[in-house]
């Protein structure tokens, strides 16, 4: 015997879900409820969202199809989006590790401009190993890595300088000044 579907009531609609879709929807609604913690009226919003899910899934069912699967549910949830509480500042959104530690060049730890130091810090690589690897690539690629390095110099923003830290060494300092000049000149984003 095999259970094929679960029938759920979503606000004013009734929907049949297969097991995977049921688990996924349960997770979405639980996430929404936890995002709405602190909202004075979470029940109403959750009911609205349930109705939205039911409407979106029903619209996506093929003629003759009665059971909602992940194929209908995932795009439906994608379209509905996760709950955004009005007035919450963007910084209050759940922070990912990369948001806590953005991909930036680190002038203080730089040999040239800080690209390796920044990549190492962001991805948790050993910076010395990364530099040896980069030099190897430089020798093997016949200089192509220079272009890659320069592109990264241009694209990766510089981490703010440590307040009261030691002055930058000559090359990292020049790189930083030059890149900031280029970005202003060509109106490139810096962070």
């Amino acid at each position, binding site marked *: 015997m095999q259970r094929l579907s679960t029938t759920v009531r979503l*606000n*004013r*609609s009734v929907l049949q879900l297969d097991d995977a879709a049921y688990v996924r929807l349960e997770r979405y609604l639980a996430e*929404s409820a936890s995002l*709405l913690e602190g*909202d*004075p*009226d979470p029940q*109403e*919003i959750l009911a*609205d*969202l349930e*109705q*939205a899910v039911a*409407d979106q899934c*029903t619209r996506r069912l093929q003629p003759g199809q009665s059971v909602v699967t992940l194929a209908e549910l995932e795009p439906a949830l994608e*379209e*509905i*989006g*996760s*709950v*955004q*509480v*009005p*007035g919450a*500042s*963007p910084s209050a959104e759940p922070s990912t590790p990369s948001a806590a530690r953005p991909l930036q060049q680190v002038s203080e730890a730089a040999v040239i401009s800080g690209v390796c130091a920044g990549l190492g810090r962001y991805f948790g690589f050993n910076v010395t190993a990364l530099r040896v690897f980069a030099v190897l690539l430089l020798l093997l690629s016949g200089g192509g890595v220079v272009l890659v390095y320069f592109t990264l110099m241009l694209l990766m923003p510089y981490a703010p300088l440590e307040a009261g830290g030691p002055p930058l060494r000559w090359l990292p300092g020049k790189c930083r000044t030059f890149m900031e000049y280029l970005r202003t000149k060509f109106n490139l*984003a*810096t*962070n």
Partner: protein
Amino acid sequence: MAAESKLAPIRKGLLEFLVLKIVGAKSMYVPDILRRLAGTEFSTQEGTLYPLLSKLRREDLVQYEWKESDAGPPRKYYRLTDSGQAQLTALDEYWNLINRTIADIGH
């Protein structure tokens, strides 16, 4: 990227104004409101709009009524309350004022 990170909070703050404007013109249910915003800078999703409408209702700026639909369950149609209408007028005036200031300043 730098400009984008500054524009996002502006859009976020203005969304409420736009929603008031939309339901001020005509009572609408959420998919209509989303369609009206789709393709503009303010394109948004149900996950954003329902919490916002719930807040606006608590602030007595909008209210809804249930209307039967041809297909599926009844729908919530949102419209402005009197105080919502007053706030929309005030926001509209303030917005025009800001626009003039921005256009004039620096010349």
